């Protein structure tokens, strides 16, 4: 198990890495169960109950809208928690071992919500608006199990689906490759429950110290 908790990052069994590498190479994505330790994810989810979100639309480099959601205000504590937790050099090392990506220097991301049975959507896209993005991650921070909201990744040219990840438990994460040859999406949420996720990218620049110091300075 690989896990981030209040006392840092733990990988309790190195032998898991080989299997993760194989799975990631085949599917270009991988689930890391319980990446965020349970009591910590519960604390974050509890904070999110009263956090402020705003309606947001996202556009590709060609100015096509590909997503609509509720995005959390950047000054909410949960954003700070996620950035502090994921800007961890040991986590960067593990991700490089799994994915063979270039050197990771930082994590940057956001928290968002997809309400069920609304116009919230996340269509096929490649996340290449920022060239420093290497590996994407999504961490489930939903208060309840939700329906729909499947992650899918495919080859851009052939449209062949390489991997699909369905609803996970709170604190579970999945990582996926960012590449000009790939696209990914999340299917709409339906049923009665809201889907909430921390999503972002492990990047080649800037340095994590810049990200952490900017959080500190924003206090």
């Amino acid at each position: 198990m690989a896990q981030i908790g209040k006392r840092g990052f733990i990988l309790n069994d190195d032998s898991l890495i080989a299997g993760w590498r194989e799975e990631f190479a085949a599917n270009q994505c991988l689930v890391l169960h319980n990446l965020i330790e349970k009591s910590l994810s519960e604390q974050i989810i509890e904070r999110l109950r009263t956090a402020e979100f705003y309606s947001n639309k996202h556009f590709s480099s060609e100015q096509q809208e590909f997503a609509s959601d509720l995005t959390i205000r950047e000054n909410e504590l949960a954003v700070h928690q996620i950035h502090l937790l994921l800007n961890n050099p040991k986590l960067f090392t593990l991700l490089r071992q799994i994915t063979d990506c270039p050197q990771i220097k930082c994590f940057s991301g956001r928290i968002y919500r997809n309400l069920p049975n609304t116009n919230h959507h996340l269509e096929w896209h490649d996340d290449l608006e920022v060239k420093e993005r290497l590996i994407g991650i999504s961490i489930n921070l939903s208060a309840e199990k939700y329906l729909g909201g499947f992650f899918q990744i495919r080859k851009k040219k052939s449209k062949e689906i390489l991997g699909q990840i369905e609803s996970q438990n709170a604190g579970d994460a999945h990582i996926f490759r960012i590449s000009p040859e790939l696209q990914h999406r999340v299917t709409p949420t339906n049923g009665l429950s809201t889907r909430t996720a921390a999503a972002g990218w492990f990047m080649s620049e800037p340095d994590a110290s810049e990200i952490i110091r900017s959080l500190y300075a924003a206090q």
Partner: protein
Amino acid sequence: MSNLYLPKAVKISENVLFQEIEGECVLLNMESEQYFGLDEVGARMWQILAQGGDPLKVLTQMQLEYETDEETLRKDLSNLLEELKNEDLIAVEN
């Protein structure tokens, strides 16, 4: 707390997140939503404290790692613990 007094044991608060960056340490009190920064020496003291909460062990280890006399280290550690306690980042057992 006097400058040379060290508590018997220290417990790191459940409401603290921390991250080491380039030898320094950033602590976030999730309750007060306040950050607290530690320089390289403070970060190393925090690391050893996080392993068992024994201030005397911190003192002993720091003496091995740093070329500083015990009195100076004891004073620095005592001051640090006082600050961390005031920020509700630790609880002390006297």
